[in-house]
């Protein structure tokens, strides 16, 4: 597959009190990480997409980037998607702050 469809949970009380999903198309290759995919969206499509990024080790050690992909917790920095569509959600939807960012 050359492109991957990324379905992203969107929500922020101040910005828009409704929860919804956005779909982004991102170029794909077999060694791309989920974090690179989110960075691509943020840098090229939508700079307002919030996902954990302010304090990350990039190496699978700190655990701070943890998100849900297709319903399961993953470390985006080391996770490479295997399906053509992925659904990205915050780790804890009931504690969501904005989009894919939730508090612990």
């Amino acid at each position, binding site marked *: 597959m050359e492109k991957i469809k990324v379905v992203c949970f969107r929500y922020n009380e101040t910005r828009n009190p409704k929860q919804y999903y956005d779909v982004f198309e991102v170029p794909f290759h077999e060694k791309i990480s989920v974090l690179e995919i989110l960075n691509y969206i943020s840098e090229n499509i939508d700079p*307002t997409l*919030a996902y954990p*990024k302010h304090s*990350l*080790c990039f190496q699978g050690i700190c655990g701070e980037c943890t998100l849900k992909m297709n319903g399961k917790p993953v470390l985006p*920095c080391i996770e490479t998607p295997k399906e053509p569509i992925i659904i990205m959600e915050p780790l804890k939807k009931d504690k969501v*702050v904005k989009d894919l960012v939730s508090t612990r």
Partner: protein
Amino acid sequence: MVEVMDDYDVIVVGSGGAGLYAAVSAAENGLNVAVMSKGRVNRSGATQLAGSGIAGDLEADGESLWNMGFKDADKTHTKEVWFKNIVLQGSYLNDQDLTENYVQKAEEVVYNLLSWGMKPYFIYEGVALYFAGVHILDALYKKAKSLDVTSISNRMVTDIVTWNGMVAGVIGIDVYSGEIFYNPAKAVVIATGGCQGMYELNTGTSELTCDGIGMALRAGAEIKNMEMMEFCNDTIVYPRKYMGNILPYILRDLGYGELLNKNGEDFITKYFDSEIVDIALHTEWNKELVSYAEYKEIKDGRGYEEGGVMFTMEGSQKKVFTEFYNIFPMIKHAPMDMEIMHMLEDQEKLYVAPAAHYIAGGIKVDSEYKTNVKGLFAAGECKAGTFGANRVSSALTEMLVEGLLAGRNVSEYIKSMDKFPSVSKSSLEERFEKDLLRPFNISQESKFKSFISIKKDLRKTMWNNVGPIKNETSLTYALNRIEYLLKEFNKVNISDKSREYNPEWIEYLNLRNMLHMAAAVAKSSLIRRESRGVHVREDYFFVDDENWLKNIVIYDMALNYSFEEPVITRINPPRVKMTYLKYIKTLLKGVKGAY
């Protein structure tokens, strides 16, 4: 609005090894301490990445380690020998009082870690104990909790608040809620690590954006030797998923694998004679010398389109890998390192280049880790002086020793003072809040559509012009470009106006420090018209003690500067002028062993 929150005796900014140890040490001296971390306390900063997360080396002198019962320790490696090694290889730019602290107190921090139950994997070259960085953090964090240190995570401290030249507390943003908080404090220890983030390829974590050094300068503290930016050779640049990982560096340090340019040539011998090649392969100068060769190859078009030179372990037998896994058993718990090892086992190739790794310059402190602002201290990588022009000894030891001592000295300072300043809420709003919220209220048009595009431009500028090899043309270009970026930076606005976890705002706050500090790195590099340690000028490819055995001290946000002699306690520098490579040979003749 600025919320006024709890006050503390001391606030430690940063929660890597230096910050946590400073907090422990201040609390042990009876102070009410808070540690604030941009990320999660105990899982932010570069400490966790030491040695690719699996092989962090904590050094002390071999004689002390022997006395602690390590029978593999090198007894002949005394404190005197170690001190001389560090000062000579620091090219005499060290503040020897700080080097003295480092050498004298290493034993104590190693002893403490062991007494808290930590066990090293093994001892290397008779002087270094190997730990995983996270184990050191966990031990310190546990100790801090037992001493009732308050931990505040995801608090991005943006400014040190002062009044009449004295510390009055810190201003910070809760990254999740976007609220601005002020915490009064009698003293502050900055322990925020390095500036790796100004380069795209770097070996650090995402929060290392030169915050501490930037906010110290804004608060009136001096900074120095910002040109001493060290690069780590053999850092993965492709596949980009592994960008910044230094496993190939560790493998090559142990003699595994080879480097090839686009034409399939082993290129290091092209640049150096056999003596320097030997130094490049077997001493801590590998970081400068191999980075030099890699940067040359890449800049001259002999790198791969993936963005670096090739690292391959083709032809290595299975037992080579088994041997490596046995040396570093921790690697089984490091998923990214294991993925990379499996690639190498499958004979796949990696592409590597020099990565921004460590800055030997930073906040100027005295032998008690005090800055020139009353009540403001700095410890670890963010401060300058311990290693002069080149760090050839453990940064883990540095952070622990300096955290320990800064924490103690803060307590002495507070006891010696009877009055501390207080500031009003309205003055805080006037002095700080406006600038923090500025990009939410901008109506100008910029050529840059977002802060990320400014960051990308800065990173490209730094790599192309302020890299492992610099010259007057490249540095002048970089300074002009950064000046232009600073102008544009003031015009960029934030499209999402809600303050909760706002990635554009975080980028703004990072760049607020990083752009100015990148200019400081470029400017200091331009001022120093010689090569020394990690600072390499191809147009001044020699060491010139007569003119340049001195520190470049920047004292205001306009980057005005002055010169200062390094502090000399025991070793008088010879005054020489010779080519950079010959100078390295001469230094190494004066030291014992490679460490």
